């Protein structure tokens, strides 16, 4: 039948190799292969193809995607914890369709309540984004935080903070103090009003107890690197001029309140430098 006299079609041969052709037809194909060099070579090519495919080195997960996934996951955890605490709303919120990115891509497309604010002290530094803006604004020893590849000595000497001493300390490891949370906000921060908007965010959101998502993984490390190891008062995912951005609030020194904006999803490998910073501002003390 097929292939006794003519050469085999690659697809037929591939099906034969996959065990899909058996019985009389299979025997006929075997017989043809036994005496046809051309089809035998084709058969070997097919075998070689599978080997070639298996040997293609796998792609590496891009660092910015890893960050983004960490952040989205943290937001998911926050939302779940939050909804389970407030069982009333949980249904409609968790049953929404997927399509997260659409929510991220456009400003204010999906609005989340600010999830958590922990106020550590009388003063706070506010940074937005995972760009390392401390060098831009600090002009102080904090500049070391901008380029150091590993957790650096704290630029924010928050007394008694476990995380400041051990940035890699996992929340599980007993440092409840070192735990911080991700808040997702629909706020679209703007150049002229950044400072005011951040203040509003700090004032307007009630501090919630532990029913929020602890930030872990690469996002956590990036944030701690920005703050020099100090637990941020606020970590917020929002927008700046319509683009995704992080907002980080941390205590640096008494009376010192600073805002930096950088692209969200940024911080590939936590190696961002000052040029990635979109904006900075200093908040008046006493917030």
């Amino acid at each position: 039948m097929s292939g006794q006299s003519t050469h085999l079609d690659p697809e037929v041969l591939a099906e034969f190799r996959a065990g899909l052709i058996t019985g009389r037809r299979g025997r006929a194909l075997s017989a043809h292969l036994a005496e046809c060099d051309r089809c035998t070579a084709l058969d070997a090519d097919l075998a070689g193809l599978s080997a070639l495919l298996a040997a293609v080195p796998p792609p590496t997960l891009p660092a910015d995607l890893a960050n983004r996934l960490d952040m989205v996951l943290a937001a998911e955890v926050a939302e779940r914890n939050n909804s389970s605490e407030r069982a009333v709303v949980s249904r409609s919120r968790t049953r929404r369709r997927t399509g997260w990115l659409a929510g991220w891509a456009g400003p204010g497309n999906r609005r989340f309540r600010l999830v958590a604010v922990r106020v550590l002290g009388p003063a706070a530094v506010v940074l937005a984004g995972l760009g390392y803006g401390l060098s831009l604004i600090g002009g102080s020893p904090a500049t070391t935080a901008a380029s150091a590849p590993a957790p650096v000595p704290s630029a924010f000497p928050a007394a008694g903070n476990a995380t400041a001493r051990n940035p890699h300390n996992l929340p599980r490891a007993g440092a409840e103090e070192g735990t911080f949370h991700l808040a997702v906000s629909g706020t679209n921060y703007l150049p002229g009003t950044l400072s005011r908007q951040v203040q509003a965010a700090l004032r307007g959101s009630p501090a919630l107890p532990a029913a929020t998502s602890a930030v872990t993984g690469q996002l956590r490390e990036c944030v701690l690197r920005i703050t020099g190891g100090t637990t941020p008062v606020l970590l917020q995912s929002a927008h700046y001029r319509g683009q995704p951005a992080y907002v980080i609030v941390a205590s640096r020194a008494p009376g010192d309140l600073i805002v930096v904006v950088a692209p969200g999803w940024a911080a590939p490998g936590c190696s961002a430098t000052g040029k990635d910073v979109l904006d900075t501002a200093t908040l008046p003390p006493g917030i």
Partner: protein
Amino acid sequence: MQGADGQWPSDLELLRRHAAGDSEAFGELFRRHRDRLWAVALRTVCDPEEAADALQDAMVSAFRRAGDFRGDSAVTTWLHRIVVNASLDRLRRKAARPATSAGDEETFEARWAHEADPAPASAVKMDVEAALRILPPQQRAALVVVDMLGFSVADAAAILDTSPGTVKSRCARARARLLPHVAHLRGDGRATEGNRSASESVSPAQGGDA
């Protein structure tokens, strides 16, 4: 298969903890597998941005649907299945969008070009992954799961939500279709005389010195 074996807590344990409200468990589970899941998404979708969206969709979906996991397959299989579904879903939605033909192609090529990859086999890798684009999505997904990731036909059937026979058939058609497009890649390494053992073919990663 991969990594999860012998790790503690097990994938299943992590998934259970997550379903029980543990805030950390899913992250640990996902981080174990995300490199491989990324490979599935990227190779199935053939577009880094769309693949990133697909992986994110899948992660969120798995996070929310952990309670649906019935335990009739490995957790890895379940995760791969969600990623493949999300990837095919992205492709469907992309196909439904009005085409910006040429522009799309250019951006795509540019993106591939920008993907830094210092591996010596990267040229081959890029050629193969570019060749994969000629395949229909279902065939491509089958080929990626079976030939590139090494899943058994049975596991692949679970991942692709179809029968083992269909998996074999899709793979066979995909290989036949792909063959002319990658034949040149093997020209320098392979012995000319036919041998049915795939393992004897020289892989591109090893060069021609086998």
